[in-house]
């Protein structure tokens, strides 16, 4: 009973309180620092399309890959109680497959791009199923199981294409990585919306959320209730695989090239962080994907804010770490409980004052 209560507590809107407050503080901070930070302009890009520009657009655009991967990571975290640290490496494999497939076709058109995308989704899902099998069937700790592809994934990506920074150049590729003619919003943002909407639909019309949470909370109980934990875990890895494929392709199209050593670099750590900032337990169980998405935008907003403040590039990561420690600590159970007790005491003490509001 107490367990269920604890689990329930971490869900709900209350879970989003810390990330929302963090985002609010960042927004206010920038407002006081420089209101011009929020200026949104219209420019004509070098392909002759009208596009929106400004820091806000930059943040939402640049966080796309992270937001997409964070969604998948949330699901894996919820089901397996652990994280996949090979997302950056496998995302690079996805990019390599995409480029390799396109180079195999005689021309780059909508049809061949879709085929390449399909191939890359397929391969990425296979790689993630490898991770998933180690985790679910062989019960290897997720971090250890995914360490394998984390360390060799980028080399595999290199073998696939066989050259260090393969290039692809086509109007379709730049439309996918930057903007579609006639639409002033960067295309990667639509990628986030697409993946988010698909997941929302899946949760709305299937029992996946309930099953995932029950496997995450108590695997044995879930099995007794007729849920197959292995299947649910594998499914979470399949969904993560698709997310990684989309993110890898976006990253590739952005630059028109795959650079094996740097594509989606360090994104595994940022994705785990996004999940944590979003108030999700890294030990699995109940989850809120919206929290992780919010976490992803907070991380990117932090980077963009520091860049706008012209912080010495040498120190930028250290500053980022300090702010993140504060956010994560504010969301930690100890601080949360303290604050709740304090809040309750104040409320019971000042009941009359409280009844006057409204």
């Amino acid at each position: 009973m107490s367990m269920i209560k604890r689990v329930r507590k971490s869900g709900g809107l209350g879970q989003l309180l810390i990330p929302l407050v963090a985002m609010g503080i960042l927004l206010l901070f920038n407002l006081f620092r420089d209101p011009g930070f929020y200026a949104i302009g219209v420019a004509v890009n070098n392909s002759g399309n009208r596009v929106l520009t400004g820091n806000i657009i930059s943040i939402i655009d640049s966080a796309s890959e992270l937001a997409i991967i964070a969604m998948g990571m949330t699901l894996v975290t919820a089901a397996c109680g652990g994280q996949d640290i090979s997302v950056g490496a496998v995302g690079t494999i996805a990019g390599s497959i995409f480029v390799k497939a396109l180079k195999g076709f005689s021309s780059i058109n909508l049809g061949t791009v879709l085929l390449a995308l399909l191939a890359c989704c397929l391969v990425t899902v296979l790689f993630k199923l490898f991770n998933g099998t180690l985790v679910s069937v062989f019960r290897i700790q997720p971090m250890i199981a995914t360490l394998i592809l984390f360390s060799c994934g980028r080399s595999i990506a290199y073998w696939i294409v066989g050259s260090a920074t393969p290039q692809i150049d086509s109007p379709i590729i730049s439309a996918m990585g930057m903007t579609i003619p006639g639409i002033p919003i960067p295309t990667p943002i639509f990628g986030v919306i697409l993946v988010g909407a698909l997941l929302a639909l899946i949760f709305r019309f299937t029992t996946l959320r309930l099953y995932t949470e029950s496997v995450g909370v108590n695997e044995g109980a879930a099995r007794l209730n007729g849920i197959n934990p292995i299947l649910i875990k594998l499914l979470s890895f399949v969904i993560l695989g698709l997310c990684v494929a989309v993110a890898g392709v976006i990253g590739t199209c952005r630059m028109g090239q795959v650079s094996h050593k740097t594509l989606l670099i360090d994104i595994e750590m940022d994705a785990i962080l996004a999940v944590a900032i979003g108030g999700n337990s890294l030990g699995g169980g109940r989850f809120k994907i919206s929290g992780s998405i919010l976490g992803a935008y907070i991380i990117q907003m932090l980077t963009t804010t520091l860049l706008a403040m012209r912080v010495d590039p040498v120190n930028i990561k250290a500053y980022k770490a300090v702010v993140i420690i504060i956010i994560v600590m504010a969301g930690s159970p100890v601080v949360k409980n303290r604050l709740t007790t304090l809040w309750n005491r104040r409320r019971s003490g000042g009941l009359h004052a409280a009844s006057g509001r409204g």
Partner: protein
Amino acid sequence: MKKLLTLVLALVLCMSIVTVAHADGIKVGIINLDPAESGYREANVNDLYSVFTADNGYDAKFVTAPTADKQLEAANTFITEGVDYILVSAAETTGWDETLEAAKDAGIGVFLFDRMIECDPELYTAAVVSDMRNEGVTAVAWLESLGLEEYNVLHIQGQLGSAAQIGRSEPLQEKCEADEKWTMVREGTGGDSWDPNEARKIAEAAINAGEKFNIVYAENDGMAQGVVAALDANGITHGVEGDVIVMGFDCNKWALRELLAGNWNYDGQCSPFQAALIDEMIKTLEAGGEIEGLNEAKQIINDEKGFDARTITEEDIATYGLGE
């Protein structure tokens, strides 16, 4: 246990047969870094493969290892096997003394290529390296030769602390401090990587803050590409006919093609071709001669160029371009 012993013995026998079969030719052990690292490394590895062949009179073994401990392990194996020469591009500049001393005692000649090792020059025969600082000096001199009225530079540094980053940064930073026509508008870095996407974000931040720059000095081709993506997205023209001058380093083929198309202005070479020089030196030693032209640190500095978009030719791309 007996079975295992037989197996091991059989294996040892097989291996010795293999060694005997390859015994003709000069025995060299080549230790390099991971070719997936960059276009530069890939070209470097392939260059060595193409020169140290059986046809050229060598019995060469190649090891590509990304970390220092694996490289040391490979070097010790080569010493035990009794090769004639060891060629190393070291992952780390320190920690080699013991291994190099062992090689010296065994009478093995050691050639360093691309990367120096911090040790007594007595421990190696010669080193063929790039002068990264000179690459920066060449680039800044080229920039100065344009005779612009003002130089407002967006400086994108590579992986902090790497020889390439330090060497290519310093001449520009010194110039900006010394000459009042030169202003450092913004400095950014990939931190611990050469991430093009990070370069894109830095450029975007500069553009969003309304900072005016007319020069992009990016310390490798990928980062220049990242900045160009941000320029394109914000409608800022670049290249020979554009408002912003774009400079990169490494001379990847794709980057040189950007030069030829006039989208970029300059690309500084960092030559990965050291194999021919080393081959020549080994042949000289084998013929009983002595190596000439070394400096105090027993180095030979690679000859490196800078390419200008206005003068580059298809032939240059074919000769000097890296990768595909």
